[in-house]
């Protein structure tokens, strides 16, 4: 089989690249930790092991993994078609708002299960429509999706604050801690002792598998891929890029909206100002690191949440700020960008 030696060569090269990247990230991170005056070894211990040390911690990680992964799945759609969906944060928030609205409506009638399902549906719809609006701003109004999305992020945040301090405020005094807590039936059921919702896990895995299937096994996925690679050629083939932009944004927004609803029903059980926990922006980093494919997304999302959960102990234990996790995540993505640049240089040299 003449292909085998070439394949092993390629695999060896990829592994070497990843190794160099890991070593580079490790060195830079160690330097940063040293400059801040903290012991690097302990810092890494808390950062990496602090999240897998106990079942409770793992439950925490998975609870963060769910919304991050959902957002990332949605972003794979928008990246596939060549769009920078920076508006994903706003889509999460609108999804959370819609989910809250649904739950607030049906407190008297209907079974809790039905209400929660409707809430997720409402969140998906809300987030999807918000994203589609951004898409229309682009296709019909010429507004670049980066700025349209960014602007709508802030509008969504404004709407949240208005709701929390206005129509949906707690009886008594409105406060930054959000709306009233939902009654217990409207909380997502969790595994005993773990605070982890099996429904959320199942949903995320379903969306992951669904995304992988749509993007690789359906005509829609093929169309998205074609438009992302070469919009002009796709247009000449009879595909309308604008239509597929809207469809991709719709998928992206729907996934993000479900993440928002999960934050409301499974994590905070109410609407708070920072309901998105920045998962939208973080998901962008996850997908960038996964080279815009669905394949590595769940593992990278898991790793990122591990870092976040592990960094919670840092202020208490080592007197350093917990944003160290964010720094590591950013350095990883920068290293990945360097790697992509290196690979494209190499492939040019190959000619």
């Amino acid at each position, binding site marked *: 089989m003449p292909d085998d030696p070439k394949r092993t060569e390629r695999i060896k090269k990829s592994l070497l690249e990843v190794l160099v990247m890991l070593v580079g990230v490790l060195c830079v991170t160690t330097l*940063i930790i040293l*400059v*801040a005056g903290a012991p690097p070894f302990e810092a890494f211990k808390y950062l990496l092991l602090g999240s897998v040390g106990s079942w409770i911690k793992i439950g925490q990680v998975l609870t963060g993994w769910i919304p991050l992964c959902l957002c990332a799945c949605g972003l794979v759609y928008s990246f596939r078609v060549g769009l*920078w969906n*920076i508006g994903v944060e706003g889509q999460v928030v609108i999804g959370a708002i819609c989910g809250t609205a649904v739950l607030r409506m049906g407190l008297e009638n209907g079974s809790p299960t039905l209400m929660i399902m409707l809430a997720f549906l409402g969140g998906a719809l809300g987030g999807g429509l918000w994203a589609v609006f951004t898409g229309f*701003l682009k296709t019909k*109004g*010429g*507004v*670049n999706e*980066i*700025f*349209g999305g*960014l*602007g*709508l992020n*802030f*509008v969504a*945040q*404004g*709407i949240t*604050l*208005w709701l929390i*301090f*206005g129509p949906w405020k707690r009886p008594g005094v409105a406060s930054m801690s959000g709306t009233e807590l939902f009654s217990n039936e409207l909380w997502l059921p969790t595994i005993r002792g773990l605070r982890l919702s099996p429904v959320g896990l199942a949903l995320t895995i379903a969306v992951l598998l669904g995304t992988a299937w749509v993007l690789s096994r359906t005509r829609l996925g093929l169309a998205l891929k074609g438009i992302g690679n070469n919009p002009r050629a796709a247009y000449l083939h009879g595909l309308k890029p604008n239509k597929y932009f809207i469809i991709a944004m719709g998928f992206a927004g729907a996934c993000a909206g479900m993440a928002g609803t999960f934050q409301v029903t499974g994590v905070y059980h109410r609407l708070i100002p920072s309901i998105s926990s920045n998962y939208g*922006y*973080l998901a*962008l*980093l996850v997908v*960038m690191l996964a080279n815009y494919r669905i394949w590595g997304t769940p593992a990278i999302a898991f790793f990122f949440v591990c870092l976040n959960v592990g960094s919670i102990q840092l202020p208490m234990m080592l*007197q*350093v*700020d917990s*944003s*160290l*996790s*964010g*720094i590591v*995540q*950013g*350095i990883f*993505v*920068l290293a990945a*960008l*360097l790697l*992509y*640049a290196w690979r*494209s240089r190499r492939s040019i040299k190959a000619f």
Partner: protein
Amino acid sequence: MSDVNIAIILGSIVAGAAPIVIAALGETISEKAGVINLSLDGSILLSAMVAFVVAFETKSVMLGFAGGAVAGALVAAVVGLFSIYLGQSQVAVGFVLTLTARDLAYFFGNPYARQYGPQMGPWPIPGLREIPFLGTVFFHHAVIIYLSMLMIAVCWWYMYRTPKGLRLRAVGEHPAAAYARGTDSRRIQMWYTVLGGLLVGIAGATFSLCTKSGWGRPQGAEGTGWIALAIVIFGGWHPAKVAFGAYLFSFLQVMGIQFQGWWPSIPAQVFQVAPFPLMIFTLLLMYAAQKGSDTGAERASPFLRRLISFLSGSPPGALGKSFRPE
């Protein structure tokens, strides 16, 4: 409301707008050369932190400003390096950096949170401050505020009245054409990206050493970078209009606090998020103007026509694209 009251309010609008003006001008320069620096928000925070720490340690406000400027320039240099020379997407690098710079700022600034540091106090200009109304509004501020106003004029003059400015704009419109005429487009783009970042760094320093002095988590300057980006677009990439946008935003912010007392029914958030719908609206108008401005509404209303022509502008032709000399 007495005269003095209005003058003080206007003065606070001018002072509050100063860092945004500086940051937006820096970003205008960078985008006019074709490079969009999406890392503004994180960059401002990082340079605010660096400026505060440097000023705190050295007890010198000037060195603090220098430190902030260097920090901003470094972040912009990374954006420039990755996008101009390594061919990566400007949006990708800028976006990662905006998050990472913010995290770096919080991480390294942690030990300096909520400490008292040196501040740049007001320095009223001796003769001009006596002018009854305008004196309070314009001449009772810190040095950096005066500089921010000067920068608007300098920026405009440089871009539109000097040969170097012409080259800047040429590179931003069509780097390949400029290259064909002998300009090293990539070097020019890198240079102006770093210069823009330097200004952004000064803006961040203005926050922590003057406008919202001190460091903490949060500092208070969060979100300003995104607003500056919106203002650059709102101002159609023209320094004077960009500055107008910055002052308008500051006006909305200050008025938001005032109006809350008068009109409690309008939520405060409307004023805070106002720049963004304005930016989207401007972009829509620009697009409509580009697509052929022969609509009936325009002919019917001269006001609309003047509004559209004021707000119109088009992005630099090569904004966001990387140029590879063959």
